[in-house]
């Protein structure tokens, strides 16, 4: 059963252009130039109940615009959106009661209050019945292991603790749908794993639909079976992560720091030279054709190598690829 249906979503922003220099500033006093930015240019997808979907794309691609529209706090210029059988922005207050949103960078808790009091205040705001609240609160405290920090002021929490509390806060009113915007940003490795594990459990055990917006590919790999890629306002890919990877990201990158100023000659059909910057050489290779260890051995055998490392191309490179652009235009590393 489709819980979220989005069709032909369009959103255009108008931004004033600023000309540099003193003359530009004086001119700006009298006349302003406006440029139109198509943040969303015909976006469409549908999500079923219980799915855990990753929503990825480079900065400025339209991710947060989509999430804002789905949260009911932004009205699109055209297109249709139906979430939980409502149009989000049409009856905001009634709709918003059924969803939860976590913005990674900013906390929704009250800075000077102990965590538990923030929870109580949210209970008041969401008008949750006392016994339902007690049950739901105790459950999130238990699952997220917040017993130790309940009486600490939010100001004093570490980033990882704060994120767990923010997650708990978003679940107190038992939403049917959860939007997570960069939930693991800035977290240390341990907290990242804890948060990831919790989100996965929420989705599996409660059947909570989760939409995860993130830059962290490890989050995606750990949690999402389905990934929607958005770039420059359009959906570039919508399917399983495996399909995405298979279609575009089969290539991996090998970066080599040579010990002397020699050109790296690689006469190999499975390896492509992206570029060479002095002693640093960037190679792209297909791991299905030549394995990483084999390629490394080959390179080391034929050249004096100071250091090297292997990595996946970043999401930006993947998106660039999807446009058919040459990957050498993007900087690896």
């Amino acid at each position, binding site marked *: 059963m489709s819980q979220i249906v989005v069709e032909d979503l369009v959103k255009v922003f108008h931004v004033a252009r600023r000309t540099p*220099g003193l003359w530009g*500033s*004086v001119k700006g006093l009298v006349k302003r130039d406006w440029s139109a930015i198509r943040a969303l240019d015909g976006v469409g997808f549908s999500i079923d109940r219980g799915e855990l979907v990753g929503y990825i794309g480079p900065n400025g691609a339209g991710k947060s615009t989509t999430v804002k529209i789905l949260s009911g706090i932004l009205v699109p210029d055209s297109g249709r959106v139906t979430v939980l059988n409502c149009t989000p922005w049409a009856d905001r207050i009634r709709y918003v009661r059924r969803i939860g949103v976590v913005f990674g960078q900013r906390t929704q808790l009250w800075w000077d209050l102990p965590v538990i009091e923030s929870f109580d205040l949210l209970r008041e705001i969401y008008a949750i019945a006392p016994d339902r609240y007690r049950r739901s609160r105790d459950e999130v405290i238990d699952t997220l292991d917040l017993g130790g920090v309940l009486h600490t002021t939010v100001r004093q929490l570490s980033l990882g603790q704060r994120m767990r509390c923010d997650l708990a806060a978003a679940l107190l009113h038992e939403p049917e749908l959860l939007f997570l915007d960069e939930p693991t940003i800035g977290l240390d490795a341990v907290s990242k794993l804890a948060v990831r594990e919790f989100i996965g459990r929420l989705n599996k055990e409660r059947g909570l639909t989760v939409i995860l917006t993130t830059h962290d590919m490890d989050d995606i790999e750990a949690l999402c079976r389905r990934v929607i890629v958005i770039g420059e306002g359009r959906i570039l890919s919508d399917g399983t992560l495996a399909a995405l990877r298979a279609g575009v990201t089969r290539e991996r990158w090998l970066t080599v720091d040579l010990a002397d100023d020699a050109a790296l000659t690689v006469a190999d059909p499975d390896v492509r030279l992206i570029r060479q910057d002095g002693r640093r050489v960037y190679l792209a290779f297909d791991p299905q054709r030549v394995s990483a260890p084999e390629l490394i051995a080959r390179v080391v055998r034929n050249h004096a190598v100071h250091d090297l490392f292997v990595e996946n191309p970043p999401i930006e490179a993947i998106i660039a690829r999807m446009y058919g652009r040459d990957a050498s235009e993007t900087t690896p590393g």
Partner: protein
Amino acid sequence: MTPYRAVLSSRFRMLLQYRAAALAGIVTQLFFGIVRTMIFDAFYRSSRVQQPIGRDDVVTYIWLGQAFLMLTILDADRDVAEMIRGGNVAYELVKPVDLYWLWFARAVSGRAAPLALRAVPILALAAFWHGLRGPASVTGAILFAVALAGGLLVAASLVAVMTISMVWTISGEGISRLMAPLVFFFSGIVVPLPLFPDWMQRGLAALPFRGLIDTPFRIYIGQLHDASALAALANQAVWIVVLVAAGRIMLARSLRRLVVHGR
């Protein structure tokens, strides 16, 4: 000299961007000018007693006050305050510049830009609509310009002290927030200083705040001329030197404490 000039000009240009703000500011200041003129008009018509300053001069004083209002609104540099609150002020030391003059330059341009945008339109409108009179004499006009520049420097040095007091002590922010309305009041912008009670005049003359707008305005209307004008300018200069010295000492001490103790 160049980094400070760069700071001055870039901030100036940045503040020029805010044209809507400038327009709003001009309208607001016109309003206050009109209201205060009406109030003092009513006062003067209610009494035949000779006052230390005539009605027309008061109106001139009020309109000059609105034109040069930015000299009386002193608060600690907000960006620097943000940095201090975030504990990042030590990073400022990484810059190869004298921190005091950097902040001083910021204070100067922070006032000069809005001033430049607002003073001319307000003076023009006041001249056309409310009969703003010209300076009392040519020498008066020249000394007025000098006194205005002096007022700008007094303002900047006061702002520098307020900003530095935030690094100096933990309650520095509260101190500058308390100082701001007092400076405003004792600058003469609401009640022209000549109209303060006689017994306060000597005390007011001793404060640096009169150097902000009262000195230039009194020169303009001719109440201070020749010797007395030069004495007032000298007073401005003395205060500038004192405030700059105090600011530099405070900053040096605070930075030393910062570098040694990290706090």
